């Protein structure tokens, strides 16, 4: 493996590793958060 490949590979994993773990953590922390508010029409309609 040449020098460029070796250093690029190591740098890549220093970034990718924490990024993947952060992604999993972010998913867990935002679990249950609704994506969007219900459409206004539904709110205004009220019980039938």
């Amino acid at each position, binding site marked *: 493996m040449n020098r460029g490949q070796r250093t690029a590979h190591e740098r890549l994993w220093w970034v*990718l590793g924490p990024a993947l773990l952060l992604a*999993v953590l972010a998913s867990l922390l935002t679990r249950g958060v609704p994506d969007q508010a219900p459409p206004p029409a539904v709110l205004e309609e009220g019980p039938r």
Partner: protein
Amino acid sequence: MSVTYVPVQWNRPKVVYDATLLAAVALYLWLFPLVARGVWPGTPQILAMRAWGTCGFLMITAILTLGPLARLDRRFLPLLYNRRHFGVIFFAVALGHAKAVLDYYHRYGVFGDGWAGRLASMLTNDTAFAGGVLPFPLFGLVALAIFLVMAVTSHDFWQAFLGPRAWKTLHMAVYAAYALVVLHVAWGALRFETHPGYAAFVALAAGGVAALHLVAARRSNAPDAAAARWVELDGVRWLDAGDPRAIPPDRARPLVVPGAERIALVRWGEGKVSAVHGVCAHQGGPLYEGKVIDGALTCPWHHWTYRPGDGQSPPPFTEKLPTYRVRLHLGRLLVDPRPLPPGTPVTPVELAPDPAPDAPAPPSPSRPLPIAGEGARG
């Protein structure tokens, strides 16, 4: 390397490798619904979808650990040699997962039950995209597209057609695809299955793959930390490569050159030691970790071969490596780190035969090793 076209060069290790993998996949897909039935009260279709999906995640994680594991322990090398077969089988499993998803959730969408209709349904379906903050099906689909390109171009034909370096660059996209797979799982399954064990497993898999790569990189880069020792002789600055007998017979060792690529020191033949460029002409593999097979230095990655005496691949192959002048001085191997043109023959250092085990000990342990051969400069 091959000069004739053979669709797949089957040999016994490849057959055993593929048969073992296929049997393991079949066993997993068969056992998964039986075990999971008690955990997830889903329909058989959902269980099948999860069986293919978890099998694929385990496979791609395993594939990514093979590279660093082989660098950390040579016993993993046989698994690395046929990694492309592993990758293609993994792609088939990932495709099985995608098919199960499209069959179950998108068969009866408004776009019809053709494959284009199912795909359109997946890409526009509110339920699928509302499962998380991020559109997790899209991550899986893009990852699958990358794996498709990789699987299709995994054959030697494509390696030759694209050129080794372009091919390798293309296949480095596996890291991006793996990141997408982790996102796909984190924003998909992990948001529906809230048991902390699942999240811990995914984090362990992704963290483990990253940690293994970093540990292997640290090990691989370790020789660079050693300070180079120079010896000036006859107006030439030589790099001191240490005791040449420390190189095991028919093996190579790295010599770190400040500011340049490593040199492969090769012990071959009857006590000959030569120096060639340490980077394989094929995909930049570490020739300094190779061994001598049938008189040729063989790259540990894909078995490309070079003659240690002149850096040329044996006929009919035409690859050439730069070579370096070597000489023996007071029992130390010295290397002139200025590369000679690729394929230049150099005179190897010749070590005196090792003393027989029952031979009397030398009179003085500090006595320099006999100089049985001179360097290229004479």
